[in-house]
């Protein structure tokens, strides 16, 4: 269970033309203590964005008039670095790639669970990209992305390429809850509705290899959402 945040002070701009969908996202985000402004179309959204900066933008692709791709480009011209999460009813890999190419930071396909949206927002807000070549460390676990070398407590672990990719994603986002869908997109790049079931199996393999030497558990399940990587002492002080 994620702790309900007390007023986060995070300003969210929600660009969504479907009033019901907008209302449900608005309600959910407000309960998560975000401060939300809603724009029903791209022009309004850009106006709002010009008058006051936002911390994050949720942008539907199918909008009347200016479409989400165009809004995204305009936003990028306005605030070069505000995180943008795209929403779309189009789940094709091509659309996803196009969205990310336009400058979106993440892409979520409708229908989605609110917990999924919320997890992605948190991930985007806390994102502090670590340089691709830097050695990652969580507790006594280290991963060297360049040499593709993983050690725990000095002992070298033998991982398959998929396990390595999975571990790298978890470690890069240590402390953050990652949903199964996020993991699936990041590590597998296959559209398959059973992938989320399969992820549990891969996580179990990875856990087994990480815990062979008797170290404490680092990959924790978050019920109903996904997984988080953190060392226990971190979680106790969180």
């Amino acid at each position, binding site marked *: 269970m994620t702790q309900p945040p007390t007023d986060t002070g995070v300003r969210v701009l929600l660009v969504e033309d479907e009033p019901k969908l907008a209302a449900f996202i608005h309600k959910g985000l407000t309960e998560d203590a975000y401060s939300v402004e809603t724009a029903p179309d791209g022009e309004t959204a850009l106006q709002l964005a010009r008058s006051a900066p936002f911390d994050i933008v949720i942008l539907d692709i199918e909008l009347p008039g200016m479409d989400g791709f165009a809004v995204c480009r305009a936003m990028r011209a306005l605030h070069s670095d505000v995180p943008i999460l795209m929403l779309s009813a189009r789940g094709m*890999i091509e659309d996803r790639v196009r969205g990310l190419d336009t400058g979106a930071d993440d892409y979520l396909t409708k*229908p989605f669970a609110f917990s999924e949206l919320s997890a992605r927002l948190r991930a985007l807000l806390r994102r502090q990209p670590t340089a691709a070549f830097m050695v990652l460390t969580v507790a006594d676990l280290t991963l060297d992305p360049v040499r593709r070398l993983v050690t725990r407590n000095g002992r070298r672990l033998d991982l398959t390429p998929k396990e390595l990719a999975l571990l790298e994603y978890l470690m890069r986002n240590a402390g953050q809850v990652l949903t199964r869908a996020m993991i699936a997109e990041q590590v597998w790049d296959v559209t*398959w*509705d059973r992938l989320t079931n399969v992820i549990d199996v891969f996580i179990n393999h990875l856990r087994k290899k990480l815990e062979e030497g008797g170290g404490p558990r680092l990959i924790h399940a978050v019920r109903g959402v996904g997984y988080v990587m953190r060392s226990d002492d971190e979680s106790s002080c969180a």
Partner: protein
Amino acid sequence: MRVRVLESLRARLTAWYVAVLAVALFLFATLLYTSLSRQLYSHHDEELTAEAAQITSLLSHVDSPDRMAAALEPVRRGEALVLILNGSGDMLFRSAALQAGEPALAQHEVLVHAATRGATHAQFFTTALDSAGTTRFICLPLPNPKGLYLQVGQPIGDVGETLRFVKIASLVLIPVVLALTSVGGLVIARRALAPMERIRMTLEAIQAEDLSRRIDVHPRELELGQLVGTLNQLLDRLARAFASLREFAGDASHQLQTPLTVMKGSIEVALSTPRDSMAYRDVLEQVAQEADTMSAILLDLRALSLADAPVSSVARPALQLSEVVTEAADLIVALAEAADLAVDVSIESGIFVRGDAVRLQQVVLNLGENAVKYSHAGGRIAIGLTRHGSDAVLTVTDSGVGIDHSDLPHIFERFYRSRRAGHGAEGTGLGLAIARRIVEAHGGRIAVQSRPNAGASFTVRLPLAAASQP
């Protein structure tokens, strides 16, 4: 109206080639006229040159204009048209023929033109005289006596006539030829375009009545034959797209009916009397589950409608099917592990086919998922890829519940649920239909062998790409 006429391809074609022909004929007539006149005149011009030379020689010893008359006496009396002028255009000598027949000779501006301009070499010109008719003249400066110009003429009645005839004939005949050509051109254009009209009418009928009809016009012309071929291919694709759209709409409305009914019903029942929060929670959870089902159905319907998009195999690079299958098999192994099943994977490397990697992977995933779904715990699944002849052969075998003989012919149909579907398994009933469409869009075949309680074995054959042929 003029614009309307020119909008017709027939009229435009005709107009174009009549215009081109008119220019060509005009050029031809002009060239003919100039070369003919040059040819005809050159004959006279030679004679005139010779005659002028004779007269010049008669005057070779005459130094003064006053003494010319005597020397020219033989010339004066003859038929010849001879004229001598000074630089001011004054006629100092005229032969008898010119004297008698042409009282107004001095008024012929052309006659004095060359002399007054101070011709330095022989010049030729043509003019019409009252007595002699059209006459060709030579004008040349006399070496003796100096400052005078000799002009010798010759009637050229027939040449003028001929040239005039050519001119008139051209002016009359060219429009006649053009008129005839326009008519002929229109007729030819109409005949050439007649198959187009038939194609158009057929297309009109097809779009109005029945997309399954094809253009049954077989023009002899290669270009039109190709057009018909392309149009028929287009109709094929349209018909397929239409059918798949109709199928999608029909399936969606039909298949979403059940979960919607369940949702609506359970919500209404829940609202009918006040309940405790646990009861509401149960209903909400059920509704969420139904929503997931609907979402899965829509996802699969979309996959189904995209599955048979034709793979233009020529344009696609060969892809390593071995890698695609290996990656998918990894996922199936994990899925099987969760269901307490063992998987034997045996994949021959270096097998290439042409196609869409994402869709081919979906085939393996769907077959694998199917195998997992219908297996008993502790069972075995085998995934294999080999080559056989010119085919890549993918097999997915399970040791599960098997398929009833009566179900076998139908299992690749959309939403076909055999009795084995009651095996506690969930799904949209589309996995195998999607797999078959993808395989067929890649020019392959899919088959199944099974006996009840003896497992099932699915075999997919795809044509190998050249790269993997031994």
